């Protein structure tokens, strides 16, 4: 009778361990997949961030700034620049 009980307990323990192994294995797979999905999302965010960086570069393109300065702010390049000699301390 004791032998039968020990056998049942052993079989139960073995079944439990098997279940634990399968459950943990499955969990690892799930977490790996979630991690991979998060990595893909990060990758996409980095890619979009880089595109935004380039769009910032585009916004600062010299031609665009010059066009806005001329057309929207009515600025123009000076046609004549005069440089003036300032008196030095000695000549004051």
């Amino acid at each position, binding site marked *: 009778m004791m032998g039968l009980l020990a056998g049942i307990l052993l079989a139960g323990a073995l079944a439990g361990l098997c279940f634990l192994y399968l459950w943990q294995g499955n969990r690892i*797979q799930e977490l*790996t*997949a979630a991690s*991979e*999905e998060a990595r*893909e999302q990060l990758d*996409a965010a980095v*890619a*979009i961030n*880089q*595109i935004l960086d*380039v769009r910032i*570069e*585009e916004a*600062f*393109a*010299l*031609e665009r700034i*010059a066009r806005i300065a001329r057309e929207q702010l009515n600025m123009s*390049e000076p046609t*004549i*620049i*005069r*440089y003036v*000699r300032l008196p030095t301390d000695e000549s004051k």
Partner: protein
Amino acid sequence: MYAYRPTNPSDPTARLRGRIVLAVFAGILLVILGRFVQLQILQHPYWLERAKASQERTIELPPQRGTIMDRTGTVLAVDVRAMAIAVDGINITHPDAAVSILQDELSLSRTELEAKVYRDSYFTWIDRRVDFDVAQRIRKRAEEADVYGLVLIDTWKRWYPQGQLASNLIGFVGTDGIGLEGIELAYDEDLQGVTQVARVLQGAAGRTYDVEIIEPGQRGSDLILTIDAGLQFICEEEIRAGVSRFSALGGMIVLLDPHTGHVLAMAQDEGYDLNEFWNSTSEERRNLAITYLFEPGSVFKVFTGLAALENNVVTATDTFNGNDGINIAGHVMHNADNESFGVVSFGEIIEHSINTGMIRVAQLLGEQPFYDFLSSVGFGSSTNVGLPGEEQGILRPVGEWSGLALAATSIGQSVAVTGIQLVRAVAVVASDGILRVPAIVLADEAEPRVGSESRVCSPATARTMLELMRTVVESGTGMWAAVDGFSLAGKSGTAQKAVPGLGYVAGKYTSLFAGIITANAPDYVMLVMLDEVRSGSASGGYTAGQIFQRAATRLIAHERLTPF
């Protein structure tokens, strides 16, 4: 009531029944075991391949191409993530929805899309360079609409944030990521990286479980150009304005640092949007500074003068007959506007660009020493600036010179040069007689450029010429180029254009001005060239000189140069 009644073991019917049941179970077990052996042992490789085929796929991610920047770090060309989109026309679900989504997100016509989506093929490209964010939207909308059969592949897209700036210099890459023109072509090997190969393990519904990198791949090397985007922009604006103002066919400005040989700007009136290079013509894409050949006209007197000074044939004060008309091999050569100057010094010959005086100087110098000097400053051979398609120019060997050649060459006729050759040679004056190989890419300081400079004349000779060129701007043919508050040096040129089969044609000129900023601190050398000015005077001093003046004024402000 049911009562347990044990079977009599001696009952032969019961024993037989028990054996039959045992045999059936044993048979079933054997079949299962047999199938197991078949699947797991005998057909193992086959089923392993099948499993891999459905769960694993090998993907190749093209390498990110190196970024091209100017010397200040301004990004001129960069790779950004993109998606290539294709369609599986055989297995696609809801093709109508797919067409609508693609039509909404991409600039493609419905007819064109329908032709691609309904094509009887497993793989048809829709667009190979879709912006990453747009592709993400397409993916999401396709999932929501149960569209399966769109294939999205990671790739890169070349982006030129400055648009048209320095387009003729930078060039572009094709859809397969290979450089096709300009810097992109010349430095393609450095800019390209190594493809990354990865094995991806996927479960049901395409869920990724593992990624194994098989080949790590490598990003392409970045490239820093010697160009200054700010100066390039100034030069492009001024040459465009100048070509328009003087109704010229075209024009260019090349700006060089004479102490390093760095090209700071390589501008021309025509350019194209690098982000839409397919809309440009080959003529618009041409880089004039290295491919356009022209006669340098009177700018060449700088080199005749340098050769004469270096060979001790003349001094700045030696005098010559500067009157109009000199007979060379039965051909009379004239001054501009047939003007006579009487007895003039060598300095005045440069200052007022007197043809007859310079021809007499060249006669004193002789053919061989003159040719040797011109060769030493790089005429007739490419500058090795490192750009594809560079022309060598034309400087015939002395053995092929006619009786007219010495005189003609001394005033910049019968030779042909490129813009980069001419500006580099003028830089000799600004660098105390050192000729440098022009550079377009900032060299690695650990690897100095071997043989990149050579002395072609003494510092004294170069400084004498610099002083004479200062008088050109102060009181000679280059007065239009003067900038208030600064002492500049320069030389103008107006060369008649030779048309194949017709020779020199009246009314067709190349107008030039080569200037040094400043005469006191010669840190910049600028060449302005206009092709066929068609409104008013074509004089190089008047036309190219004024463009030089405007560009130099802006350069001085940009670089915050000190006046006086």
